[in-house]
């Protein structure tokens, strides 16, 4: 399904679209306030971007340095070429242990790899512990936003989900109450945990440690009570030195939701005595993206979600319309690299207004890459293309003045005198959601000549 088809479904409920739009815009406004409080904000963005340039140009060396230091700290390091291998590694660790109670904090990477489904198939239930993720997990949906996974749901709907799965009374819409129910429900899970799975926000090459940030404290609750901690990390999450965290931690939460810093910025360096710690380094298309000159920069992303909150298309079409693990502008430049055909409509789901690039804390030129992907996609497409046909007809008319005048007269006649379906039909994609201006009675040339008389 293309983005526009999916977006049409979302747009049927106008009241909901307005609510979604305003709700996300709030996050963007909070980001603006928080970013302006830091005088060196722009300098920090440039530094973050430059650090990532350094990382991408030395990725192999940093990965080896990270592996060596992590191993010295007692962490088991695994390498996975794709999502399948990642899932198999995680599964083999769990299977060998014989443990059954698994909790997971938010990780977009494990979503990308489809880990929950894979483990379910093998007979394991993974409990997501981030509140938003737990809500959509209970409802059997994927996240619609990378920072606020259940942002598409209204309080009433969440109340219904809790009523159905957690036995609360029907019709509860109080966020405080619902959060308390989730707290009690998940606390039980934490106290039984044997295996904790987390994502990674930053892997630090010079310490061999990694950083996980949350506001809820769910990652820490799971990890510090677990017997085994498995951290899953995309290879682009690496940074060279601990001092670089000073730059990224100043940018991340302010960009994401306008918070000064996440409540918990946790640095995992060694396992607890008696605990087993693993880290899985995942490629899954990242080295392919590294090869692409025009799109390499997309690997700088720190998953703050600011580009989604600001995007006029995302806000008005919802995360699900993208049909991709990472929705919104950044997802639309990452996904085509994974599967050009499947995600071919995403780079077109943009006004190219550039707002995403303006708010990006690591200065990814997102809107320019969207434009570049459009070129790649059109080039890759074979067979009939309505837009190409229309453009070539328009081109042949526009370069012949006499024909142009004739066509203009014809168009004015059709628009003024013929039934509506002649102009607005399946061939006129442009007119699907837009109205042409009323046709004037005469052309500019005619008007100009008459005026001189």
């Amino acid at each position: 399904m293309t983005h526009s088809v999916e977006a049409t479904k979302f747009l049927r409920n106008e009241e909901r679209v307005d609510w979604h739009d305003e709700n996300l815009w709030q996050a963007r406004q909070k980001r603006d306030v928080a970013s302006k409080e830091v005088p060196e904000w722009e300098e920090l963005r440039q530094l973050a971007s430059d650090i990532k340039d350094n990382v991408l140009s030395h990725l192999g060396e940093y990965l080896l340095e990270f592996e060596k230091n992590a191993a010295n700290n007692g962490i088991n390091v695994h390498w996975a070429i794709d999502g399948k291998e990642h899932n198999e590694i995680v599964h083999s660790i769990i299977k060998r242990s014989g443990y059954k109670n698994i909790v997971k904090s938010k990780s977009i990477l494990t979503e990308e790899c489809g880990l929950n489904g894979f483990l379910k198939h093998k007979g394991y239930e993974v409990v997501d512990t981030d509140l938003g993720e737990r809500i959509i997990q209970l409802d059997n949906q994927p996240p619609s936003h990378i920072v606020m996974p259940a942002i598409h749901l209204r309080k009433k709907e969440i109340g219904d989900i809790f009523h159905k799965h957690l036995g609360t009374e029907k019709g509860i819409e109080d966020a405080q109450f619902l959060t308390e129910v989730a707290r009690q429900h998940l606390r039980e899970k934490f106290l039984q945990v044997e295996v904790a799975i987390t994502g990674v926000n930053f892997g630090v090459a010079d310490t061999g440690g990694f950083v996980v940030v949350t506001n809820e404290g769910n990652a820490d609750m799971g990890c510090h009570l677990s017997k085994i901690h498995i951290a899953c990390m995309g290879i682009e999450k690496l940074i060279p030195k601990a001092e670089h965290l000073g730059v990224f931690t100043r940018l991340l939460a302010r960009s994401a939701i306008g918070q000064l810093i996440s409540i918990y910025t946790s640095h995992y360096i060694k396992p607890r005595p008696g605990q087993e710690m693993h880290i899985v380094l995942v490629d899954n298309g990242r080295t392919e993206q590294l090869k692409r000159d025009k799109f390499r920069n997309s690997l700088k992303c720190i998953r703050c979600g600011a580009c989604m909150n600001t995007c006029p298309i995302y806000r008005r079409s919802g995360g699900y319309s993208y049909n991709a693990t990472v929705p919104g502008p950044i997802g639309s430049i990452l996904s085509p690299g994974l599967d050009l055909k499947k995600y071919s409509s995403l780079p077109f789901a943009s006004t190219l207004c550039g707002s995403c690039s303006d708010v990006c804390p690591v200065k990814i030129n997102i809107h320019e890459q969207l434009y570049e992907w459009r070129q790649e996609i059109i080039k890759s497409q074979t067979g009939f293309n309505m837009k190409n046909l229309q453009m070539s007809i328009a081109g042949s008319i526009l370069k012949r003045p006499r024909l142009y005048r004739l066509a203009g007269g014809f168009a004015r006649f059709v628009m003024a005198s013929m039934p509506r379906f002649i102009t607005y039909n399946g061939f006129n994609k442009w007119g699907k959601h837009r109205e042409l201006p009323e046709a004037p009675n005469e052309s500019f040339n005619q008007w100009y000549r008459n005026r001189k008389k």
Partner: protein
Amino acid sequence: MSSKEKMLKTIEEVDLKKVDSPIIPEFEFEHNLVDAFKKAMKINHAEVIETVGEEETVAQLKVLSADYNRICSAFPIKDLDCTYAREVSDPRELKDINLGVIRGMFGVAENGAIWVPEENCHQRVLPFIVEHLIIVLKADSLVSNMNQAYQSVELVKTGFGVFISGPSKTGDIEQTLVIGAHGPRSLKVILEK
């Protein structure tokens, strides 16, 4: 060829022009550190209580802990009936603690973050599992921002460390702020001069 070799080979073949890591400058901070820290903590929904000297801190701890009956402290507090984290062997034993007390190493004025390495907790889960948390922090330990903060942290010397900047919270239901997600429902910071 192993996946590791394949990944490294692809990376090597890309052969990008090497870019140096940038030098991170010292950023000036024009506010008073204590004032800025208090302001940040207010935004983060944490409460700051100022004391002068250790004696007043202990007195304040006694006042603040009066409402709680299951207290766990990571350091000895004179004449206060509580569990010492050092004596806890299984982290699950902490599940019913309604007040935890720990020391922070230093605080960050710009955002209120407080550095807590595991040595300050004895049990890593302590600052997360307790219902309410108090962090005792020396006022002269404050640094201006995260760039300075990471110069003060020796990550390789610890096994786990966390910056804590407030009580746990969530905005996952329609962006409505709820304090007390999975971790503490409140954070009080005793800022000792």
